[in-house]
């Protein structure tokens, strides 16, 4: 059976070059970067080299990069560490309603610790209104965080504008750029942000390596206490192979970004244009143009996402969904809900996220296998039969 992986938001594969770069550090070059001997030197040079490559990808200084275990850790670190460092100035933080749970739940934890939180809404395309952010900022606002793009609906935020307003109001600005770094141009100076999270497994690096960039001079409370690793800001023996992989992935992403984007856009658009002509009552979620190149997210009406995923999986297609039934906690995606998508429609969430291994044939395969799946589930759906009866009654 044909196998088609269209769940790159969950994770990208590790590219061949990345794996090759990592292997020596899983074998003979096993030293601890903190050790004062040849083995230590070799490992230390490798992670410093990787630091330079990651910094170069986002237009930063190497000394500003703190390696973490994941995007989730980077977000936890950023929100808690920046807020705690600023708490003498105020206790109010502002984040958007569609942030990743690693950020949203970190902000909720801060609330429990005595901070106050304001969530900024989004419009129907999932766009955060910069004016909305500005209005949420108070005298005592110390930190504002808005994601660069949502991996779930693909919408890219006007970060530069939001960051400017936040900083004019005297707050520190952080952006979760896990969905964008390595995929679209991310330059910390151009975006004019103070801190930024990224993760290697979103751009062909390994799982287990992410980074937090914090602008030189900005204060942050260490997340993990212990030794002097990462300038004393993130203790723990460095995950050398993963960090090396992240560095290699960053180097490749920088060199190939334009050609990668062109390929992803072509595939994404082929699906976005092809699906509505084969399936009725499909809506694209997220912004029609300001969206990630590999993201095509839909809501397919009258049916439910998990059932679609299972039938797609039986045809070898891997996708994802923000439906309530798909989530372990049985809640519809907070992103779709914040965009004002009615719960019944959000249940039909289906996300295909493209990667570099995908081909036009993959898109055509989805266009071939999805309509019968939708048809099968609609034949079973009481919502669909009600809709048909009402439609007939109306005519």
């Amino acid at each position, binding site marked *: 059976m044909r196998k088609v992986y269209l769940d790159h938001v969950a994770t990208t594969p590790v590219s061949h070059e990345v794996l090759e770069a990592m292997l020596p550090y899983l074998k003979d070059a096993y030293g601890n970067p903190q050790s004062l001997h040849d083995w230590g030197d070799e490992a230390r040079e490798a992670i410093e080299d990787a630091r330079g490559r990651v910094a170069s990808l986002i237009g930063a200084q190497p000394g500003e990069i703190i390696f973490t275990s994941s995007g989730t850790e980077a977000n936890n670190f950023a929100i808690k560490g920046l807020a705690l460092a600023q708490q003498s100035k105020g206790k109010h933080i502002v984040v958007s309603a569609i942030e990743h749970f690693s950020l949203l739940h970190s902000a909720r934890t801060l609330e429990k610790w005595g901070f106050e939180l304001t969530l900024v809404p989004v419009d129907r395309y999932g766009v955060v209104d910069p004016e909305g952010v500005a209005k949420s900022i108070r005298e005592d606002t110390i930190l504002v965080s808005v994601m660069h793009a949502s991996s779930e609906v693909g919408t890219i935020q006007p970060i530069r504008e939001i960051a400017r307003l936040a900083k004019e109001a005297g707050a520190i600005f952080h952006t979760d750029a896990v969905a964008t770094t390595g995929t679209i141009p991310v330059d910390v100076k151009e975006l004019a942000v103070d801190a930024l999270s990224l993760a290697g497994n979103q751009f062909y690096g390994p799982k287990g390596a992410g980074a937090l960039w914090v602008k030189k001079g900005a204060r942050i409370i260490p997340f993990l206490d212990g030794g002097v690793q990462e300038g004393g800001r993130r203790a723990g023996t460095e995950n050398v192979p993963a960090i090396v992989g992240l560095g290699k992935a960053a180097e490749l992403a920088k060199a190939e970004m334009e050609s990668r984007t062109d390929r992803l856009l072509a595939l994404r658009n082929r699906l976005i244009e092809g699906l509505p002509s084969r399936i009725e009552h499909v809506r694209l979620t997220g912004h029609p143009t300001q969206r990630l190149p590999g993201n095509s997210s839909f809501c397919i009406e*009258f*049916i*439910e*996402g*998990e*059932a679609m*995923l*299972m*039938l797609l*999986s*039986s045809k070898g297609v891997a996708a994802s969904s923000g*439906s*309530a*039934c*798909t989530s*372990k*906690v*049985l809640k*519809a995606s907070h992103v779709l809900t914040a965009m004002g998508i009615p*719960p*019944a429609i959000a*249940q039909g969430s289906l996300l295909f996220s493209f990667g570099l291994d995908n081909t036009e044939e993959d898109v055509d395969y989805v266009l071939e296998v999805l309509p019968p799946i939708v048809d099968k589930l609609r*034949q*079973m*759906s*009481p*919502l*669909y*039969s009600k809709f048909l009866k009402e439609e007939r009654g109306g005519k």
Partner: protein
Amino acid sequence: MPVYNEKVMEHFMNPRNVGEIENPDGIGEVGNPVCGDMMTFYIKVDDNRLSDVKFKTFGCGAAIAVSSIVSEMAMGKTLEEVRKITPALVAQELEGLPKNKYHCSNLGAQALNKAINNYLKKQGKAGESKRRRKDEKE
């Protein structure tokens, strides 16, 4: 997707008794799209037995598998026997459901019961049946 066991998968992939019954003797609808799942059961009753059971379900794999197995469990049974199909029995017949999907088995049993209530109400026997069930308990 190995979240579900083989039996659940088999019923999900090949659900039995999908559809509607024209002029059914009873209809039972439970759930709503807001909370995720919605099931509608249609029954035909002959001589106190379910001579036909059909369903339509909006929901996840578990909801569809539950609907399918419930329709099978109920087919041909007397109303009294059908009343004894509990969520636990449904889950047992499916050889287990993930914890967070257990509520789907409630919906299946509920929908079927509602269809019977609807039938009895049409027959004007709703009160009588309630008394009978009470008697059984005592």
